[in-house]
Protein backbone atom coordinates (compact mmCIF):
# COMPACT_ATOMS: atom_id res chain seq x y z
CA UNK A 1 0.00 0.00 0.00
CA UNK A 2 1.22 3.47 -0.78
CA UNK A 3 2.32 5.83 1.94
CA UNK A 4 0.27 8.79 2.94
CA UNK A 5 3.08 11.02 1.74
CA UNK A 6 2.91 9.54 -1.77
CA UNK A 7 -0.83 9.94 -1.65
CA UNK A 8 -0.57 13.58 -0.61
CA UNK A 9 1.85 14.18 -3.43
CA UNK A 10 -0.63 12.78 -5.93
CA UNK A 11 -3.51 14.74 -4.46
CA UNK A 12 -1.45 17.91 -4.90
CA UNK A 13 -0.69 16.94 -8.50
CA UNK A 14 -4.43 16.67 -9.13
CA UNK A 15 -4.93 20.25 -7.93
CA UNK A 16 -1.70 21.52 -9.50
CA UNK A 17 -0.25 22.34 -6.09
CA UNK A 18 -3.23 24.44 -4.98
CA UNK A 19 -3.21 23.50 -1.26
CA UNK A 20 -6.17 25.74 -0.53
CA UNK A 21 -8.26 23.85 -3.07
CA UNK A 22 -7.10 20.49 -1.73
CA UNK A 23 -8.11 21.49 1.80
CA UNK A 24 -11.49 22.60 0.51
CA UNK A 25 -11.99 19.31 -1.36
CA UNK A 26 -10.96 17.25 1.66
CA UNK A 27 -13.48 19.20 3.75
CA UNK A 28 -16.19 18.48 1.23
CA UNK A 29 -15.39 14.84 0.65
CA UNK A 30 -17.00 13.17 3.74
CA UNK A 31 -20.38 14.84 3.25
CA UNK A 32 -20.35 14.29 -0.54
CA UNK A 33 -19.56 10.67 0.12
CA UNK A 34 -22.34 10.46 2.70
CA UNK A 35 -24.86 11.77 0.15
CA UNK A 36 -23.80 9.17 -2.40
CA UNK A 37 -23.85 6.46 0.29
CA UNK A 38 -27.44 7.39 1.06
CA UNK A 39 -28.39 6.96 -2.61
CA UNK A 40 -26.47 3.70 -2.66
CA UNK A 41 -28.20 2.33 0.44
CA UNK A 42 -31.60 3.25 -0.95
CA UNK A 43 -30.75 1.51 -4.24
CA UNK A 44 -29.75 -1.62 -2.31
CA UNK A 45 -33.00 -1.62 -0.35
CA UNK A 46 -34.89 -1.21 -3.63
CA UNK A 47 -32.76 -3.89 -5.29
CA UNK A 48 -32.15 -1.32 -8.03
CA UNK A 49 -28.94 -2.46 -9.72
CA UNK A 50 -28.80 0.56 -12.06
CA UNK A 51 -29.13 3.14 -9.29
CA UNK A 52 -26.62 1.29 -7.10
CA UNK A 53 -24.18 1.07 -9.95
CA UNK A 54 -24.56 4.77 -10.74
CA UNK A 55 -23.98 5.80 -7.13
CA UNK A 56 -20.84 3.62 -6.94
CA UNK A 57 -19.70 5.06 -10.27
CA UNK A 58 -20.00 8.60 -8.90
CA UNK A 59 -18.06 7.65 -5.78
CA UNK A 60 -15.36 6.20 -7.98
CA UNK A 61 -15.06 9.34 -10.14
CA UNK A 62 -14.99 11.65 -7.15
CA UNK A 63 -12.29 9.67 -5.32
CA UNK A 64 -10.18 9.34 -8.44
CA UNK A 65 -10.35 13.05 -9.26
CA UNK A 66 -9.07 13.97 -5.82
CA UNK A 67 -6.19 11.55 -6.32
CA UNK A 68 -7.41 8.65 -4.15
CA UNK A 69 -6.76 6.08 -6.86
CA UNK A 70 -6.61 2.97 -4.63
CA UNK A 71 -9.92 3.84 -3.00
CA UNK A 72 -11.36 4.52 -6.46
CA UNK A 73 -10.35 0.96 -7.41
CA UNK A 74 -12.41 -0.34 -4.49
CA UNK A 75 -15.34 1.76 -5.70
CA UNK A 76 -14.91 0.20 -9.12
CA UNK A 77 -15.26 -3.27 -7.57
CA UNK A 78 -18.43 -2.14 -5.82
CA UNK A 79 -19.67 -0.83 -9.16
CA UNK A 80 -19.18 -4.29 -10.68
CA UNK A 81 -20.82 -6.05 -7.72
CA UNK A 82 -23.80 -3.70 -8.04
CA UNK A 83 -24.10 -4.37 -11.74
CA UNK A 84 -24.27 -8.08 -10.91
CA UNK A 85 -26.94 -7.35 -8.26
CA UNK A 86 -24.72 -8.72 -5.51
CA UNK A 87 -26.18 -6.18 -3.13
CA UNK A 88 -25.21 -7.51 0.29
CA UNK A 89 -21.51 -7.86 -0.58
CA UNK A 90 -21.60 -4.52 -2.36
CA UNK A 91 -23.11 -2.78 0.65
CA UNK A 92 -20.56 -4.31 3.01
CA UNK A 93 -17.71 -3.15 0.79
CA UNK A 94 -19.22 0.29 0.48
CA UNK A 95 -19.38 0.71 4.26
CA UNK A 96 -15.73 -0.34 4.43
CA UNK A 97 -14.83 2.07 1.68
CA UNK A 98 -16.53 4.94 3.49
CA UNK A 99 -14.60 4.18 6.65
CA UNK A 100 -11.30 3.95 4.79
CA UNK A 101 -11.99 7.14 2.92
CA UNK A 102 -12.76 9.11 6.06
CA UNK A 103 -9.61 7.77 7.70
CA UNK A 104 -7.54 8.67 4.64
CA UNK A 105 -8.98 12.16 4.56
CA UNK A 106 -7.97 12.67 8.18
CA UNK A 107 -4.44 11.44 7.54
CA UNK A 108 -3.89 13.49 4.42
CA UNK A 109 -5.29 16.56 6.15
CA UNK A 110 -2.91 16.12 9.07
CA UNK A 111 0.06 15.77 6.72
CA UNK A 112 -1.09 18.75 4.68
CA UNK A 113 -1.35 20.94 7.79
CA UNK A 114 2.16 20.01 8.89
CA UNK A 115 3.59 20.43 5.43
CA UNK A 116 6.48 22.88 5.36
CA UNK A 117 5.95 25.83 3.10
CA UNK A 118 7.13 25.31 -0.47
CA UNK A 119 6.62 21.51 -0.33
Amino acid at each position, binding site marked *: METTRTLLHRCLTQV*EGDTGLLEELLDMLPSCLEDLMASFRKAVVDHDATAAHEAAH*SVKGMLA*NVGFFELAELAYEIEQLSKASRFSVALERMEELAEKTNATVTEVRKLLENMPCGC
Partner: protein
Amino acid sequence: MRVLIAEDNVLTRRMLERTFERWGYELVSTPSGKEALDLLLGPDPPLIAVVDWMMGDLDGVTVCRRLRAERTEPYIYIILVTGRRSTADIVAGLEAGADDYIVKPFNPEELRVRVRAGERIVRLHQELVNAREKLRLQALTDPLTQIWNHKAILDRLDSEYERAQREGIELVVAMMDVDRFKQINDTYGHQVGDQVLVETAARIRDVLRPYDSVGRYGGEEFLVIVPCQNPADPADIGRRLWQRIRGTRYKLDGLHLRVTVSVGLSVWHASEDIPPPQLVQRADQALYYVKRNGRDNYMVYSHMAALPAPANAG
Protein backbone atom coordinates in the same frame (compact mmCIF):
# COMPACT_ATOMS: atom_id res chain seq x y z
CA MET B 1 -12.82 32.82 -23.25
CA ARG B 2 -15.88 31.57 -21.40
CA VAL B 3 -16.10 27.89 -20.45
CA LEU B 4 -19.14 25.90 -19.39
CA ILE B 5 -18.70 23.15 -16.82
CA ALA B 6 -21.51 20.64 -16.53
CA GLU B 7 -20.82 18.15 -13.77
CA ASP B 8 -23.32 16.74 -11.30
CA ASN B 9 -20.84 15.73 -8.62
CA VAL B 10 -20.40 18.75 -6.37
CA LEU B 11 -16.82 17.95 -5.43
CA THR B 12 -15.63 17.31 -8.97
CA ARG B 13 -17.47 20.44 -10.12
CA ARG B 14 -15.76 22.55 -7.45
CA MET B 15 -12.43 21.13 -8.47
CA LEU B 16 -12.99 21.93 -12.14
CA GLU B 17 -14.22 25.43 -11.30
CA ARG B 18 -11.15 26.30 -9.27
CA THR B 19 -8.83 24.72 -11.83
CA PHE B 20 -10.31 26.71 -14.73
CA GLU B 21 -10.33 29.89 -12.67
CA ARG B 22 -6.64 29.36 -11.96
CA TRP B 23 -6.07 29.04 -15.70
CA GLY B 24 -7.76 32.38 -16.23
CA TYR B 25 -11.03 31.30 -17.83
CA GLU B 26 -14.38 32.91 -17.27
CA LEU B 27 -16.78 30.25 -16.00
CA VAL B 28 -20.37 29.14 -16.07
CA SER B 29 -21.07 25.95 -14.19
CA THR B 30 -24.07 23.77 -13.58
CA PRO B 31 -24.85 20.37 -12.08
CA SER B 32 -27.58 19.80 -14.65
CA GLY B 33 -27.37 18.48 -18.20
CA LYS B 34 -30.64 20.21 -19.05
CA GLU B 35 -29.41 23.56 -17.85
CA ALA B 36 -26.15 23.02 -19.72
CA LEU B 37 -28.07 22.46 -22.94
CA ASP B 38 -30.21 25.56 -22.33
CA LEU B 39 -27.09 27.67 -21.78
CA LEU B 40 -25.40 26.29 -24.89
CA LEU B 41 -28.49 26.90 -27.00
CA GLY B 42 -29.12 30.33 -25.48
CA PRO B 43 -27.81 33.75 -26.47
CA ASP B 44 -24.06 34.38 -26.25
CA PRO B 45 -23.15 30.81 -25.22
CA PRO B 46 -19.79 29.77 -23.75
CA LEU B 47 -17.68 28.52 -26.67
CA ILE B 48 -16.00 25.69 -24.80
CA ALA B 49 -18.00 23.14 -22.83
CA VAL B 50 -16.61 20.53 -20.47
CA VAL B 51 -19.48 18.11 -20.05
CA ASP B 52 -19.74 15.13 -17.73
CA TRP B 53 -20.97 11.96 -19.38
CA MET B 54 -23.14 10.75 -16.50
CA MET B 55 -25.54 13.32 -15.15
CA GLY B 56 -28.84 12.64 -13.46
CA ASP B 57 -31.27 14.65 -15.58
CA LEU B 58 -29.65 14.62 -19.03
CA ASP B 59 -26.43 12.81 -19.90
CA GLY B 60 -23.50 14.42 -21.67
CA VAL B 61 -23.89 12.42 -24.87
CA THR B 62 -27.48 13.63 -25.24
CA VAL B 63 -26.35 17.21 -24.57
CA CYS B 64 -23.83 16.85 -27.44
CA ARG B 65 -26.30 15.30 -29.82
CA ARG B 66 -29.02 17.88 -29.21
CA LEU B 67 -26.63 20.81 -29.36
CA ARG B 68 -25.24 19.68 -32.71
CA ALA B 69 -28.73 19.10 -34.10
CA GLU B 70 -30.04 22.48 -32.98
CA ARG B 71 -27.11 24.86 -33.32
CA THR B 72 -24.34 25.22 -35.89
CA GLU B 73 -23.15 28.74 -35.01
CA PRO B 74 -21.28 29.85 -33.10
CA TYR B 75 -19.27 26.65 -33.02
CA ILE B 76 -19.06 25.24 -29.50
CA TYR B 77 -16.16 22.94 -28.68
CA ILE B 78 -17.25 20.09 -26.43
CA ILE B 79 -14.99 17.98 -24.24
CA LEU B 80 -16.78 15.00 -22.71
CA VAL B 81 -15.58 13.93 -19.28
CA THR B 82 -16.07 10.24 -18.79
CA GLY B 83 -15.21 7.44 -16.42
CA ARG B 84 -15.71 5.01 -19.27
CA ARG B 85 -12.65 3.68 -20.96
CA SER B 86 -13.98 1.32 -23.60
CA THR B 87 -13.41 2.27 -27.23
CA ALA B 88 -17.08 1.74 -28.03
CA ASP B 89 -18.10 4.32 -25.42
CA ILE B 90 -15.58 6.83 -26.67
CA VAL B 91 -16.68 6.32 -30.27
CA ALA B 92 -20.30 6.83 -29.19
CA GLY B 93 -19.37 10.10 -27.47
CA LEU B 94 -17.47 11.44 -30.46
CA GLU B 95 -20.20 10.37 -32.86
CA ALA B 96 -22.74 12.26 -30.77
CA GLY B 97 -20.79 15.41 -31.60
CA ALA B 98 -18.16 15.75 -28.90
CA ASP B 99 -14.86 17.14 -30.19
CA ASP B 100 -12.72 15.47 -27.60
CA TYR B 101 -12.97 13.47 -24.40
CA ILE B 102 -11.02 13.06 -21.22
CA VAL B 103 -11.17 10.08 -18.93
CA LYS B 104 -11.60 10.45 -15.15
CA PRO B 105 -9.49 10.84 -13.14
CA PHE B 106 -8.41 13.64 -15.40
CA ASN B 107 -4.85 14.73 -15.33
CA PRO B 108 -4.97 18.53 -15.03
CA GLU B 109 -2.09 19.08 -17.42
CA GLU B 110 -3.73 16.92 -20.06
CA LEU B 111 -7.06 18.66 -19.56
CA ARG B 112 -5.35 22.00 -19.97
CA VAL B 113 -3.75 21.20 -23.32
CA ARG B 114 -7.00 19.72 -24.57
CA VAL B 115 -8.85 22.90 -23.63
CA ARG B 116 -6.18 24.95 -25.38
CA ALA B 117 -6.60 22.85 -28.52
CA GLY B 118 -10.33 23.61 -28.27
CA GLU B 119 -9.64 27.31 -27.95
CA ARG B 120 -7.57 27.23 -31.12
CA ILE B 121 -10.38 25.54 -33.03
CA VAL B 122 -12.97 27.98 -31.71
CA ARG B 123 -10.78 30.99 -32.62
CA LEU B 124 -10.13 29.64 -36.12
CA HIS B 125 -13.82 29.09 -36.58
CA GLN B 126 -14.62 32.63 -35.45
CA GLU B 127 -12.04 34.01 -37.86
CA LEU B 128 -13.55 32.00 -40.70
CA VAL B 129 -17.05 33.20 -39.88
CA ASN B 130 -15.86 36.82 -39.71
CA ALA B 131 -14.02 36.51 -43.02
CA ARG B 132 -17.04 34.94 -44.66
CA GLU B 133 -19.30 37.70 -43.32
CA LYS B 134 -16.88 40.35 -44.58
CA LEU B 135 -16.82 38.73 -48.02
CA ARG B 136 -20.58 38.46 -48.09
CA LEU B 137 -20.91 42.17 -47.30
CA GLN B 138 -18.22 43.04 -49.82
CA ALA B 139 -20.14 41.20 -52.50
CA LEU B 140 -23.21 43.30 -51.73
CA THR B 141 -21.61 46.69 -51.22
CA ASP B 142 -20.59 49.32 -53.72
CA PRO B 143 -16.90 49.87 -52.94
CA LEU B 144 -16.95 53.60 -53.63
CA THR B 145 -20.05 54.74 -51.78
CA GLN B 146 -20.38 51.87 -49.28
CA ILE B 147 -24.08 51.53 -49.97
CA TRP B 148 -25.76 48.47 -51.59
CA ASN B 149 -24.64 47.67 -55.12
CA HIS B 150 -26.97 47.15 -58.10
CA LYS B 151 -27.72 43.50 -57.44
CA ALA B 152 -28.05 43.94 -53.68
CA ILE B 153 -30.51 46.84 -53.88
CA LEU B 154 -32.71 44.86 -56.30
CA ASP B 155 -32.60 41.91 -53.88
CA ARG B 156 -33.62 44.31 -51.10
CA LEU B 157 -36.50 45.50 -53.24
CA ASP B 158 -37.72 41.93 -53.70
CA SER B 159 -37.54 41.19 -49.99
CA GLU B 160 -39.11 44.52 -48.99
CA TYR B 161 -41.86 43.91 -51.52
CA GLU B 162 -42.58 40.51 -50.02
CA ARG B 163 -42.59 41.97 -46.54
CA ALA B 164 -44.92 44.81 -47.61
CA GLN B 165 -47.29 42.25 -49.13
CA ARG B 166 -47.24 40.21 -45.93
CA GLU B 167 -47.73 43.18 -43.63
CA GLY B 168 -50.05 45.17 -45.88
CA ILE B 169 -47.87 48.28 -45.85
CA GLU B 170 -46.96 50.57 -48.75
CA LEU B 171 -43.67 50.92 -50.56
CA VAL B 172 -42.13 53.98 -52.19
CA VAL B 173 -39.39 53.52 -54.77
CA ALA B 174 -37.24 56.49 -55.81
CA MET B 175 -34.82 56.59 -58.71
CA MET B 176 -32.32 59.44 -58.43
CA ASP B 177 -29.82 60.75 -60.89
CA VAL B 178 -27.08 63.35 -60.33
CA ASP B 179 -27.68 66.16 -62.83
CA ARG B 180 -25.00 66.84 -65.43
CA PHE B 181 -22.62 64.40 -63.79
CA LYS B 182 -20.58 64.01 -66.97
CA GLN B 183 -19.95 67.73 -66.87
CA ILE B 184 -18.67 67.52 -63.28
CA ASN B 185 -16.29 64.75 -64.29
CA ASP B 186 -15.10 66.63 -67.36
CA THR B 187 -14.61 69.91 -65.49
CA TYR B 188 -13.09 68.76 -62.21
CA GLY B 189 -11.82 65.27 -62.97
CA HIS B 190 -12.94 61.80 -61.98
CA GLN B 191 -11.69 62.04 -58.41
CA VAL B 192 -14.02 64.92 -57.69
CA GLY B 193 -16.75 63.05 -59.55
CA ASP B 194 -16.22 60.09 -57.21
CA GLN B 195 -16.38 62.35 -54.18
CA VAL B 196 -19.63 63.83 -55.43
CA LEU B 197 -21.08 60.31 -55.55
CA VAL B 198 -19.81 59.53 -52.04
CA GLU B 199 -21.27 62.74 -50.64
CA THR B 200 -24.56 62.20 -52.48
CA ALA B 201 -24.86 58.69 -51.01
CA ALA B 202 -24.16 60.09 -47.53
CA ARG B 203 -26.80 62.81 -47.93
CA ILE B 204 -29.39 60.33 -49.15
CA ARG B 205 -28.69 58.22 -46.06
CA ASP B 206 -29.19 61.29 -43.86
CA VAL B 207 -32.74 61.61 -45.13
CA LEU B 208 -33.54 57.91 -44.70
CA ARG B 209 -34.44 55.91 -41.61
CA PRO B 210 -32.36 52.86 -40.65
CA TYR B 211 -34.85 50.46 -42.22
CA ASP B 212 -35.00 52.27 -45.56
CA SER B 213 -32.56 51.16 -48.24
CA VAL B 214 -30.38 52.88 -50.80
CA GLY B 215 -28.17 51.39 -53.47
CA ARG B 216 -26.01 52.55 -56.33
CA TYR B 217 -28.09 51.50 -59.29
CA GLY B 218 -25.74 52.62 -62.01
CA GLY B 219 -22.95 55.18 -62.60
CA GLU B 220 -24.59 58.24 -61.03
CA GLU B 221 -27.98 56.64 -60.37
CA PHE B 222 -29.32 55.73 -56.95
CA LEU B 223 -32.29 53.56 -56.08
CA VAL B 224 -34.09 54.21 -52.79
CA ILE B 225 -36.69 51.99 -51.10
CA VAL B 226 -38.91 53.37 -48.37
CA PRO B 227 -41.49 51.12 -46.66
CA CYS B 228 -44.39 53.16 -45.22
CA GLN B 229 -46.56 52.10 -42.29
CA ASN B 230 -48.92 55.02 -42.94
CA PRO B 231 -50.34 55.98 -46.33
CA ALA B 232 -47.28 56.84 -48.36
CA ASP B 233 -46.53 60.45 -49.33
CA PRO B 234 -44.07 59.92 -52.18
CA ALA B 235 -43.96 63.61 -53.09
CA ASP B 236 -42.79 64.42 -49.57
CA ILE B 237 -40.05 61.76 -49.77
CA GLY B 238 -39.03 63.05 -53.19
CA ARG B 239 -38.92 66.65 -51.99
CA ARG B 240 -36.78 65.78 -48.95
CA LEU B 241 -34.28 63.79 -51.04
CA TRP B 242 -34.10 66.48 -53.69
CA GLN B 243 -33.78 69.27 -51.12
CA ARG B 244 -31.07 67.51 -49.08
CA ILE B 245 -28.80 67.41 -52.14
CA ARG B 246 -29.38 70.89 -53.54
CA GLY B 247 -29.85 72.66 -50.16
CA THR B 248 -26.17 73.23 -49.42
CA ARG B 249 -23.10 73.19 -51.64
CA TYR B 250 -20.72 70.22 -51.57
CA LYS B 251 -17.40 71.14 -49.98
CA LEU B 252 -14.82 68.97 -51.71
CA ASP B 253 -11.08 69.63 -51.80
CA GLY B 254 -11.51 73.37 -51.54
CA LEU B 255 -14.30 73.36 -54.11
CA HIS B 256 -17.81 74.52 -53.31
CA LEU B 257 -19.94 72.64 -55.80
CA ARG B 258 -23.60 73.12 -56.38
CA VAL B 259 -25.01 69.67 -57.06
CA THR B 260 -28.60 68.86 -57.93
CA VAL B 261 -30.50 65.68 -58.60
CA SER B 262 -33.54 64.57 -60.53
CA VAL B 263 -35.85 62.22 -58.66
CA GLY B 264 -38.58 59.96 -60.02
CA LEU B 265 -40.87 58.09 -57.65
CA SER B 266 -43.42 55.30 -57.75
CA VAL B 267 -45.63 53.80 -55.05
CA TRP B 268 -46.90 50.35 -54.36
CA HIS B 269 -50.19 50.24 -52.49
CA ALA B 270 -51.19 47.06 -50.69
CA SER B 271 -53.05 44.59 -52.95
CA GLU B 272 -51.90 46.28 -56.17
CA ASP B 273 -50.52 43.88 -58.74
CA ILE B 274 -47.38 45.73 -59.71
CA PRO B 275 -44.25 43.59 -59.49
CA PRO B 276 -40.96 45.14 -58.34
CA PRO B 277 -39.42 45.53 -61.82
CA GLN B 278 -42.42 47.58 -62.86
CA LEU B 279 -42.09 49.79 -59.78
CA VAL B 280 -38.53 50.54 -60.81
CA GLN B 281 -39.64 51.14 -64.39
CA ARG B 282 -42.31 53.62 -63.25
CA ALA B 283 -39.84 55.50 -61.04
CA ASP B 284 -37.50 55.58 -64.02
CA GLN B 285 -40.23 57.01 -66.25
CA ALA B 286 -40.93 59.73 -63.69
CA LEU B 287 -37.20 60.43 -63.55
CA TYR B 288 -37.12 60.65 -67.33
CA TYR B 289 -39.98 63.14 -67.17
CA VAL B 290 -37.98 65.36 -64.77
CA LYS B 291 -34.90 65.09 -66.98
CA ARG B 292 -36.91 66.11 -70.01
CA ASN B 293 -38.33 69.09 -68.13
CA GLY B 294 -35.17 70.81 -67.04
CA ARG B 295 -33.83 68.41 -64.34
CA ASP B 296 -33.31 69.48 -60.67
CA ASN B 297 -36.76 68.43 -59.55
CA TYR B 298 -38.83 65.44 -58.41
CA MET B 299 -41.91 63.77 -59.86
CA VAL B 300 -44.24 60.98 -58.76
CA TYR B 301 -45.24 58.57 -61.52
CA SER B 302 -48.96 58.67 -60.73
CA HIS B 303 -48.96 62.48 -60.89
CA MET B 304 -47.56 62.50 -64.40
CA ALA B 305 -50.84 61.55 -66.06
CA ALA B 306 -52.44 64.75 -64.80
CA LEU B 307 -49.74 66.86 -66.43
CA PRO B 308 -49.41 67.99 -70.02
CA ALA B 309 -47.15 65.86 -72.19
CA PRO B 310 -43.50 66.76 -71.70
CA ALA B 311 -41.91 69.25 -74.00
CA ASN B 312 -40.08 67.62 -76.81
CA ALA B 313 -36.71 68.91 -75.72
CA GLY B 314 -33.75 66.86 -74.41
